[in-house]
């Protein structure tokens, strides 16, 4: 049942995605590309690039886009609800309990213990996109675009939208 699979594919990453907002990226990739094969690595990269260029949280944008791609408007709705509702319900329902534990070392430890795993999955995904880039655009173009993007993002702190736009222009001109 496609709606149930969509629900699971977004519910699981969002309920275990401790350690910071972007932590869910490799977890969603593991479901959407790895487990269910709804998207190719190339399509996932396009979704991520656009998701990073537009404002508002990446998790809900990915859910909406992937859900729509897989099962239309109903799919988008299911994926977005799976992303938003569980933690919101917990927040509304367990406010007192959470308030008492908001500074608890255990809660802090949950983020701390998950981070090395996320770092590894993120690194694995980075490597995957390197190989995808070499297979698609070729090694030279991958290095040129990658190095330029790194300088723009890290050194000049350019907005991701500008960097994505620059890459699109480069791709349209030199990779066609």
């Amino acid at each position: 049942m496609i709606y149930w699979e969509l629900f699971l594919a977004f519910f699981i990453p969002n309920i275990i995605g401790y350690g910071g907002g972007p932590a869910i990226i490799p977890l969603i990739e593991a479901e959407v590309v790895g487990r269910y094969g709804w998207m190719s690595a190339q399509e996932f990269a396009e979704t991520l690039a656009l998701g990073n260029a537009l404002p508002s949280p990446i998790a809900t944008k990915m859910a909406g886009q992937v859900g729509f791609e897989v099962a239309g408007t109903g799919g988008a709705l299911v994926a977005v609800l799976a992303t938003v509702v569980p933690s919101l319900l917990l927040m509304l329902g367990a406010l007192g309990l959470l308030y008492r534990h908001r500074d608890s070392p255990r809660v802090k430890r949950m983020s701390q213990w998950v981070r090395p795993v996320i770092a590894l999955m993120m690194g694995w995904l980075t490597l995957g996109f390197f190989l995808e880039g070499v297979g698609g655009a070729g090694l030279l173009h991958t290095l040129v675009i990658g190095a330029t993007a790194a300088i723009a993002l890290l050194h000049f702190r350019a907005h991701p939208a500008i960097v994505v736009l620059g890459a699109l222009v480069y791709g349209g001109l030199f990779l066609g």
Partner: protein
Amino acid sequence: MIPLVHQEVVKRHAWMTDEEFADVLAIANTLPGPIATKMPGYIGYRVAGLGGCIIAVSAVIVPMIVAMILLLSVFSHYRDVDWIRGMGQSVVPVVMVMLAQLTLDFWHKSRLALGWAVSLAMAVIAGVLIYGLGLHPGWVIGALLIAALLRPAQKASETRS
């Protein structure tokens, strides 16, 4: 985004005090999932019940979801055109760099909290389980979360209120 929400909620509409806002933020941070939907959801619910909750969350997420779907479906439609495909390929190295940056960020925070030896050991073990043995990452992370929650806190860092 949080300072902008604060500006609207506390300063402009006076739906809650500074202190309440800080508490809600701290509570939202104990839960997984994007902070930018938990805050509006909770504030919307407090101000105007279920309808307020739905409207506040929708206002945050719907416009950009629609933009994503429109842009990517137009893009996919013309995927067969050579230069459009080139544009698609060109964003892969950009995403690679963004993820490399996030990898370093997560590694750095992990190293600061746990030390590099523990971080590396946990990363390697998780890598073997997930990519070597094909275990679903949910099991690995779920087990870690439960262990972190159940293991008694050390006396020195025990500061429960």
